[in-house]
């Protein structure tokens, strides 16, 4: 007898909870569908100071003298710096080629490229905080950020702006799992159009017929007048039985060491 009574009470309370949650969820979904910026702006503006505090705390922690830090953290920092140095070397390796190419293109097409700097934006949150594999940036429509603008670090392009709020924006990475981006592969000064499929973690996969030449160290570029490196071929996998080769590409920039990015102004966007 008691069993049934308890069951009944619990069930009534559970129904009430479920109803409240359902009503709240329905309200939020309707708001999100019809007036999406209201909720996003409110939440982003509330979260921005907290992200900034976290950034400031990270900065303070990283500036603690090495004497007080553990051997493990120092070893981790050394390996991170080595990785960063490797990426920097890769980025510098093609700098002269890109510079010459840029001068040639400017001269050939008589098209001046804007000397204005892009919009400098601090990274407030990056993967894996975000289940969507996106970057939350500290610059929005007020600072001039537009949807579709390229997000870059020097000559390396990371992705595009997918959502703009008043003081924040969200960038979607080209390397996000499932994203397919039309790029071109440069092999011995020959440009080959390719479709790169994002794999997450700043890596891509490209599938090409075996006959098309590709080698480790080849560069992958984003089409456009401005030099835009997306990644470097890490390895090429081909089997005897298949008529295709799989090209593994990784971005020369490690996302986890980034604190700032440059967002191109609208007129620079190809």
């Amino acid at each position, binding site marked *: 007898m008691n069993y049934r009574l308890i069951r009944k009470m*619990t069930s009534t*309370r*559970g129904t009430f*909870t*479920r109803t*409240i*949650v359902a009503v*709240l*969820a329905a309200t*939020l*979904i309707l708001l*999100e569908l019809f007036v999406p910026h209201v*909720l*996003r702006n409110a*939440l*982003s503006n509330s*979260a921005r100071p*907290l*992200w900034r505090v*976290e950034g400031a705390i990270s900065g303070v922690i990283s500036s603690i003298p090495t004497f007080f830090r553990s051997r493990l953290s120092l070893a981790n920092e050394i390996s991170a710096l080595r990785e960063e140095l490797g990426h920097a070397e890769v980025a510098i390796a093609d700098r002269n080629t890109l510079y010459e190419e840029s001068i040639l293109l400017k001269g050939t097409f008589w098209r001046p490229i804007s000397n204005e700097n892009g919009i400098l934006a601090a990274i407030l*949150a990056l993967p*894996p*905080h*975000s*289940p*969507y594999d*996106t970057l*939350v940036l500290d610059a929005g429509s007020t600072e001039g950020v537009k949807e579709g603008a390229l997000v870059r670090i020097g000559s390396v392009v990371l992705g595009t702006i*997918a*959502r703009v709020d008043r003081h924040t924006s*969200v960038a*979607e990475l080209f390397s*996000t*799992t*499932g*994203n*397919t981006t039309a790029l071109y592969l440069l092999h011995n000064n020959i440009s080959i159009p390719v479709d790169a499929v994002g794999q997450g973690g700043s890596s891509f996969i490209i599938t090409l017929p075996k006959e098309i030449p590709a080698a480790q160290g080849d560069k992958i570029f984003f089409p456009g007048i401005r030099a835009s490196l997306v990644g470097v071929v890490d390895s090429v996998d081909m089997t005897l039985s298949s008529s295709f080769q799989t090209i593994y590409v990784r971005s020369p920039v490690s996302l986890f060491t980034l604190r700032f990015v440059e967002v191109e102004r609208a007129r620079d966007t190809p």
Partner: protein
Amino acid sequence: MHLFRILADAALVLSVLFLPWWATLVLVLVSFFLFESYGYELVAAGVAMDLLYGVPQVRFAGITLVATLSSLLLLALLVSMRRRMRV
């Protein structure tokens, strides 16, 4: 108990902002079985994730409410599981 609940909610807010999404998931799962009617916080965490980080993506068929819908599904599963565990 109220104090613990407030602390758990504060931890949830911090995990949504600063920790990987799976850490938030673990926190939500643990809290759900510790506190009564934790469904509000669970769904709120999903909505917050969508509003802060969500963009339409190909892998989710352009849906921007993936975390919200997932949290609702998870809530239904957890409520059902808790009811079975109490019998």
